[in-house]
């Protein structure tokens, strides 16, 4: 993400500075832990106002742009930080902000100030119309898997009758944590007769939720392009310093070409995701946004997966250790590329919504 205005630069610098907190030791300590991030960091982010970036001023937010948010998320990706910025402060928060239900405004306040941490539970997030949680007579029933962050104060549960807010400690609500590749967790939640009175309604339909998913895809892609940039940097550094056969391995032309290919992948991911993020700040129809989101996230997936694998290869055995920080990025790559749609699913989505193939006449 390249800052284009002073405001972007300020945000990007602040986020980068904040990233100094994210030492590899802290990142490792968060793994296999509940919660899978630092709540104190979350509160600190809230105090900086960052959680309200995507919320209108009328609702108590900063009314900033997606491009502003992108600056933060990019820095987050570079640092491989575990706090669920995209999952909570984009996916769940935007679902909430785009809602029309009575629970919306007071929850927005609590989310912005960091006191309430939200996760969106929309079953099979690649195909949210395929939702299995049901709403009838004021109660919710069903299960939902791959809910991120697993540890939240409340969950926005998507159903065909709209979106409802449910507290983590509600009666009838339970969850099982499943460990993800990066040591964070996804929740597999079960709702059995969980009460959802009208005041807990966040949205009366799924439109906002679907839009939020596409927005989150694009911001997730930005985070991934930040990770790509860092992995490339680590790899180039290693190629310059690691010596074998009496010279830096970066002097072998075979490896120079590989490094260039990684650079191409990184540049492509950066520009594609940045363009998509900027487009989110312009009027877009639903299909255009969806196509953009699928394309950006698919590109981030392919670029990042390529870079992660090659970065390890070019580091040799060192790249395969847990002690070296590259591994944190590789495991986050595995995690994020399967979240919100893997490449195959996104390409299929794109094909399903794009114009039919036109045969150009000669």
């Amino acid at each position, binding site marked *: 993400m390249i800052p284009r205005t002073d405001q972007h630069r300020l945000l990007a610098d602040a986020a980068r500075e904040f990233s100094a907190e994210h030492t590899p030791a802290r990142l490792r300590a968060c793994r296999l832990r509940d919660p899978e991030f630092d709540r104190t960091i979350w509160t600190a982010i809230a105090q900086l106002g960052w959680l309200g970036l995507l919320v209108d001023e009328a609702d108590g937010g900063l009314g900033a742009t997606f491009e502003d948010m992108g600056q933060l998320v990019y820095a987050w990706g570079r640092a491989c930080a575990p706090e669920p910025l995209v999952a909570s402060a984009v996916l769940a928060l935007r679902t909430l902000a785009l809602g029309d239900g009575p629970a919306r405004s007071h929850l927005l306040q609590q989310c912005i100030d960091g006191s309430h941490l939200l996760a969106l539970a929309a079953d099979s997030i690649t195909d949210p119309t395929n939702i299995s949680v049901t709403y009838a007579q004021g109660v919710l029933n069903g299960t939902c898997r791959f809910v991120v962050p697993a540890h939240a104060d409340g969950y926005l549960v998507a159903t065909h009758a709209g979106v409802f807010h449910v507290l983590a400690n509600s009666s009838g609500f339970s969850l099982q944590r499943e*460990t993800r590749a990066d040591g964070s967790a996804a929740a597999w939640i079960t709702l059995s007769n969980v009460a959802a009175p009208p005041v807990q309604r966040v949205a009366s339909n799924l439109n906002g939720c679907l839009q939020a998913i596409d927005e989150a895809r694009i911001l997730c892609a930005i985070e991934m392009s930040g990770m790509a940039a860092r992995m490339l940097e680590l790899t180039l550094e290693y190629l310059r310093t690691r010596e074998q056969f009496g010279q830096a391995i970066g002097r072998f032309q075979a490896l120079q070409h590989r490094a260039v290919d990684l650079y191409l992948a990184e540049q492509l991911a950066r520009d594609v995701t940045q363009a998509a993020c900027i487009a989110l700040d312009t009027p877009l129809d639903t299909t255009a946004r969806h196509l953009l989101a699928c394309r950006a996230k698919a590109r981030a997936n392919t670029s990042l997966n390529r870079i992660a*694998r090659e970065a390890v*290869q070019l580091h040799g*055995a060192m790249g395969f250790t*847990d002690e070296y920080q590259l591994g944190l990025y590789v495991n986050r790559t595995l*995690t994020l*590329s*399967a979240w919100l749609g893997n490449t195959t699913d996104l390409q299929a989505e794109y094909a399903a919504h794009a114009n039919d193939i036109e045969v150009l006449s000669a």
Partner: protein
Amino acid sequence: MNTSSTQDWNALDDDAFRALIRSRFEADYPTHLRYTSRRLRWHENGEWYRHMSAMGWIAPAWPVAHGGMGLSPTKLLIFHEEQERWGIGRFQDHGILMVGPVLIRFGTDAQRERWLPHILSCEHIWAQGYSEPNAGSDLASLRTEARIEGDEFVITGQKIWTTLAQDATHMFVLARTDKQAKKQAGISFILVDLTSPGVRVRPIRDLAGHEEFNEVFFDHVRVPIDHLVGPLNAGWDVAKALLGFERIHIGSPKLPQYALGILAKLAQLRGCHTDPVFKARFNALRMDIEDHCDIYARFVEIVKRGEPLPDEVSVLKILATETFQRAADLILETAGPAAQLHGSVPIGDGLVDLLGPFYKAMPASIYGGSNEIQRNILAKNVLHL
């Protein structure tokens, strides 16, 4: 029951051989050890391999004269296929795969008598002491030193990335025995008992969260001089021959077949095995693996004839590991959102370790001589560029 001495496996027709192997694996292999996500430790699968040993099945590729099954290439392929099909975990098999063949080629009769029976009985578990912190691809720059004092070597130095050294009783070590000689010329191949005083092993955690590789430190470790294999200062030739055996092993279709087995199971559980896009991808991969078997068979034939493996064996290592990686990637793509989950993942009414194959495949293009080094070998020694 030692069947190997009484049975001529190669006389059986292929289907009968397959049926025999299969029924034995299915009947005897512990179910909870099938398709495990990580390399099993010796306390977990030692019993199974001692059982294989007792049956005379522990060394399928060794000549019968030395206690192996002496399988023909076709039979050996069937043996591997059945192992993978049943999800049988590998053990720390460097003794069988590398030390045995090296001793058969370079050892003295006394050494063969001394070491081979312990390898066959699984009493001795071997680790590979080649790599050092500054000698990876450039292996010949290794610095671990073996000084001769009377009838002993005194070894001092450090090895790294040693797979499963924590379970091994012995290690074959490349050490410098002549500091004056140029690189390759002053290296010897020495067999070391890891219980000797002065040996220290420190596990290194890997990306998958497992402790499979290690650092091994040698501080004035005393080793009898008759543990030298091949002539003094001529260890490089032994080491290279051993790498050939390692490459034909890594280059076997076993690993891709193992991934293909998991992919098939996953597709069944997810119900996408009839999806045309999936079927096209699956079968493209399957064809690649079947093709690989054909090229693999050519090299097995060479081993069988007892001839040295030519540099071309690098072809196998590249093809097998890169096919394995593509198969592991296809597992992740096929799993959808579940691919973000670590360990055994509930899918439909089964359990699949989705990331397991990925973590196994990723370093396969690094160890055994990285694929870049294999390509260098082929470019230089085979294509003469």
